[in-house]
């Protein structure tokens, strides 16, 4: 895990890679995770693994589809690592506190999610990707680009914040009309979540109406993002197996020249299925 160089006595590294600002004097610090360059999202990454992300509003069925994909990939013996938006423990407490006490502003909401993402990138996304595994991400930075901008932050700023995010090999955007997603959500649980309904934006005091207004904005932005970043749009109103067939076909394409890392054997991975 630790990549500190053996020059650990304050000496300069002999052949340290140049850092972003050309300052190589500080050595190969363990705290420095990855170089941050502009527009990483616009060019393919160079890691051995594959990064596949799903996007869409709540109730689009993206997690269901990702779960089915996960099962299929593992059944084929692929080493899969799964990661989910807003799941790192680093900012969990701030996030809970902020949400409960309604302290979050669009900017702090955005930055806390960025901390979560950066933390998961360091520990959950990049290592498996570099090790040649398939990383499945339930939501990726496009979620921030859509939601945070719908909350009012500047679209360019939020792209700059996430400038360190590598571009997925495949991003599947599950497009669904508001009414369908509402129906799915309300069938599953009685109440919409406060932030999911965009109640913090103050569009309406009625949660269902607020959801409609807020998620319509999000949906509109997703449409533009699909264009800007070349997301693969899947109509999420179709039946589940039909959607999954499309998903698998697209994934197969991405795995065409993929080479599994050498492990003891493929069959270990089945046992890890969640």
């Amino acid at each position: 895990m630790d990549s500190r160089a053996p020059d650990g006595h304050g000496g300069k590294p002999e052949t340290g890679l140049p850092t972003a600002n050309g300052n190589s004097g500080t050595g190969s610090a363990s705290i420095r995770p990855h170089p941050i360059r502009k527009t990483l999202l616009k060019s393919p990454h160079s890691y051995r693994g594959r990064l596949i992300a799903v996007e869409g509003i709540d109730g689009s069925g993206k997690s269901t589809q990702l779960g089915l994909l996960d099962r299929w990939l593992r059944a084929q013996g692929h080493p899969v690592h799964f990661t989910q938006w807003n799941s790192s423990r680093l900012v969990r407490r701030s996030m809970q506190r902020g949400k409960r006490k309604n302290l979050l502003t669009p900017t702090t909401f955005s930055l806390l999610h960025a901390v979560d993402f950066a933390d998961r990138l360091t520990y959950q996304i990049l290592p498996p990707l570099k090790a040649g595994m398939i990383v499945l991400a339930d939501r990726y930075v496009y979620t921030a680009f859509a939601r945070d901008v719908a909350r009012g932050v500047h679209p360019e700023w939020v792209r700059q914040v996430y400038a360190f995010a590598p571009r997925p090999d495949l991003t599947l955007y599950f497009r669904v009309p508001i009414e369908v997603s509402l129906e799915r959500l309300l069938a599953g649980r009685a109440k919409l979540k406060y932030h999911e309904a965009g109640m913090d934006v103050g569009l309406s005091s009625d949660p269902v109406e607020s959801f409609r207004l807020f998620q319509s904005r999000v949906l509109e932005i997703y449409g533009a993002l699909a264009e800007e970043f070349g997301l693969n749009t899947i109509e999420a109103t179709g039946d589940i197996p039909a959607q999954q067939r499309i998903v698998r076909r697209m994934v197969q394409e991405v795995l065409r020249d993929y080479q599994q890392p050498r492990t003891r054997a493929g069959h270990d991975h089945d046992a890890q299925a969640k």
Partner: protein
Amino acid sequence: MTLKRNNNWFGHGLPYLARKPLPGHLIAIEGTDGVGRSTQIALLRPWLELEGYAVSDTGWIRSPLLSETINEAKQGHRLTVTTFSLLYAADFADRLEHEILPALQAGFIVIADRYMYTAFARNAVMGADPAWTRDLFGMALVPDLVLYLQVDVDHLVPRVVQGKGMDYWESGMHLALGSDIFESFLHYQRGLLGEYDKLAEEWGFVTIDARRSIEDIQSELRSHIADYLQRSGRESAKSGKSAEATKSAESEAPTNGAAASDGQKT
């Protein structure tokens, strides 16, 4: 040094907020750890209040939303320069929206113990892309006045050692330069001071020689602040109200213009 007056955002600012006039003054005190920033701020406040100004202060990583998370994270070894920067930015944004902007709107003088330049300096030493760090703070308001307490490592060392001692982070131990905290401190702080000096030039900080006594530093700080307040008073009296705040604030400008000499009612 150019006078940077109200409503001057560093980048894109906070587009979702209605632009309100900011009759207050934002004064940032920068300088490395142990240079005496908080001592000086503690002395500035009663002086300004005696002069009739309402004062509000705010400090780096003191936001209710994040201070706990940051302090807890610093206990472990989980942070990277990226997550660190984002946490700083979140802390800053929280204080900006809940403390700094409301106080400026109400006509207070806000004294900020450290400002975004602290993140710029630290990140540069840690090797993060400086352009990224600056983009991150695009939501920030540019201070009206930045007072930089400048010191050299030779003067800093005894203060820190006799003060609270050398701390893991302030000594740059996270840079893994070696196990000797003293050597690491020297190396890290030298890097930081160099970065601060560069920033001072770039951003027109008022540089104050902080190797001197507390009293000397304080009196120089006061004279710079008094000078700034006088100039900003003159400027608003002349132009109705400075810079972009003009349109919405024209009518109330004379009140603020008089503030520099007469003090301000809030």
